[in-house]
């Protein structure tokens, strides 16, 4: 009993001793800091002084649930999305000889042959001038670049899985130039599997494809805006000459009869894995010209129909004009990533006052598809995926397109939808030059 009392007293004394030491240290500390303040001339900040101070984190982090935004669906709800971004603007100008992503693997089952999800030769990321490529040294601008991870089973720590990884930007503004053009006698080294023979005097067919390289396959979603102008020459039934300008979509040139307004645009949504061609059925070509065409114009029968099926290699560039929600991703199963803005494209255009003005299908009430009303992007397929919801392929211009002899049957096809088939036409697309410094790229 006495031993226990002694122990309690000793503990009490120890506590008192500790408190005394702490108070002494506090007093010493106060006197030192007081001296320091007075010696350095530091003064207390007022509240108003704090208003002068500004700063913002360079890195931003966010978590978005797959079910919290408008338009949640089966490809978004199983996941939570973790986003790490930089609050800034990145400008780039770069060349790549060959970009191949997702070669082989599970998607070979889909295409039926060895290939890549994204396979592009001679890629340049550069600035733009309108919808044309900019100067060689001009940069493409990525606004607020970020990375995002799609996580499954996020609430169960032992089952948490990374399903997909995405690299993107709030908007991208610039031009992606692709491929090369070849001429007679030059071996097309990239097209050995299909159409490697180039005949520059051909206007349609495989020998046209042989004069081009570039977009071998693309996986992703491209919300495209298309237009073209062609001076079409033909001899109907070998007898009646035809020489006329034809156009479809909104074009800026004044040689044709197409206008520039939003309602003249042709919007085509392209989405899928390992896409290799670009097609347009029932394209209304408005003709203007001399001879029989002027007669048709006079009676209002100058609209003819054509189907275009172009190998993607004949296209040498896409313009991105402040394209929102641009990203590149890879995933093990389909994932609908959240849009950067976390609102649907239509809501975004409405907030910006651009409904009915912006040259985008989602800025209209007549061309909008369900994807325009979802705050989640188009589901990205298994494999690699590029998302560019507003890509411009406009003002494609060929002032010398000779169809040769067109049969009576072919002429009749011109009169009604889906129209006369033109397969692999020479679009006369030239690859943008991006020579810079010591680069021998072009």
């Amino acid at each position, binding site marked *: 009993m006495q031993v226990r009392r002694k122990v309690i007293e000793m503990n009490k004394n120890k506590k008192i001793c500790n408190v005394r030491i702490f108070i002494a240290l506090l007093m010493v500390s106060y006197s030192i800091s007081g001296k320091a303040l007075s010696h350095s001339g530091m003064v207390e900040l007022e509240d108003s002084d704090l208003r002068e101070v500004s700063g913002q984190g360079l890195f931003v982090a966010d978590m978005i649930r797959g079910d919290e935004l408008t338009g949640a669906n089966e490809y978004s709800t199983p996941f939570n999305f973790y986003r790490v971004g930089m609050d800034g603007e990145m*400008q780039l100008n770069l060349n790549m000889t*060959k970009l191949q992503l997702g070669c082989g693997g*599970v998607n070979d089952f889909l295409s039926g042959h060895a290939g890549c999800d994204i396979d592009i030769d001679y890629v340049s990321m550069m600035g733009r001038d309108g919808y044309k490529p900019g100067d060689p040294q001009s940069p493409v601008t990525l606004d607020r670049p970020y990375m995002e991870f799609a996580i499954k089973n996020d609430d169960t720590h032992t089952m948490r899985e990374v399903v997909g990884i995405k690299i993107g930007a709030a908007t991208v503004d610039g031009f992606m130039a692709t491929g090369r053009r070849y001429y007679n006698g030059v071996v097309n080294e990239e097209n050995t599997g299909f159409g490697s023979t180039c005949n520059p005097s051909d206007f349609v067919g495989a020998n046209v494809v042989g004069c081009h390289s570039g977009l071998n396959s693309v996986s992703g979603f491209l919300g495209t805006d298309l237009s073209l102008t062609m001076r079409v020459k033909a001899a109907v039934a070998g007898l009646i000459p035809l020489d006329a300008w034809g156009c479809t979509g909104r074009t800026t040139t004044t040689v044709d009869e197409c206008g520039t307004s939003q309602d003249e645009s042709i919007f085509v949504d392209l989405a899928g894995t390992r896409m290799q061609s670009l097609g347009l*059925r029932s394209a209304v070509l408005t003709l203007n010209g001399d001879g029989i065409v002027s007669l048709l114009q006079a009676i209002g029968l100058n609209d003819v129909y054509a189907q275009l099926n172009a190998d993607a290699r004949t296209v040498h560039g896409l313009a991105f004009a402040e394209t929102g929600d641009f990203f590149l991703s890879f995933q093990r199963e389909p994932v609908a990533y959240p849009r950067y803005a976390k609102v649907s494209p239509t809501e975004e255009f409405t907030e910006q006052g651009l409904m009915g003005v912006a040259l985008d299908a989602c800025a209209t009430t007549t061309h909008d598809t369900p994807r325009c009303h979802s705050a989640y992007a188009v589901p990205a397929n298994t494999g690699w995926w590029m998302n560019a919801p507003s890509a411009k392929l406009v003002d494609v211009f060929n002032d010398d397109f000779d169809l040769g002899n067109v049969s009576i049957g072919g002429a009749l096809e011109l009169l009604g939808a889906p129209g006369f088939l033109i397969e692999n036409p020479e679009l006369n697309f030239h690859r943008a030059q991006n020579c810079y410094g010591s680069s021998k790229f072009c």
Partner: protein
Amino acid sequence: MFFRKCSTCADFDAFAYMLTAVDVRNGNSQYTCPGGEGCAGDGYTPRGVGVSNRNDGPGDQYTDGYDMSGRYYAISDSCQATSGDPYRCGYGGSYSVNAGAKHVFVLNKLDPSTTFGVASRPYKEEVDCGFFCGTTGETRGIPVIRTDVVNIGDSRIEGMQMNYMKFTSYGAGSP
């Protein structure tokens, strides 16, 4: 590059659609096109997908000329924009994977084509429904590869030259 599920997790559906091209122009008389496999004769069959190795989707195809051994699943489509859904008119249609014995059908799985307003076309299979009935088409759903590991292939960038790069951080109050 491989993705593997965690040891206690469920298998996942590696699944891709090959081509969906949706013409979103206003519906009018120019839309009289057949889509999907009906476009093959017009040169709209994607390279690498021949008719001989392709399964056709619902419709008359499952009775005659239906190719069970085909690896590919091509949904046939048709449209009449003046009286129906204009978005079904396009040069494509929807393609999905049908990897023989390795695939399973999932009923009521969302067809990604609906993102573009294209009506869902789940896979149908010919079944024998009895002596008096003959054969009929039974909806099986969307074919997927259900797996615990998937290889999404190799990647490379050859000959990359960065000519210019500049990063500018935004200040406070930037939009």
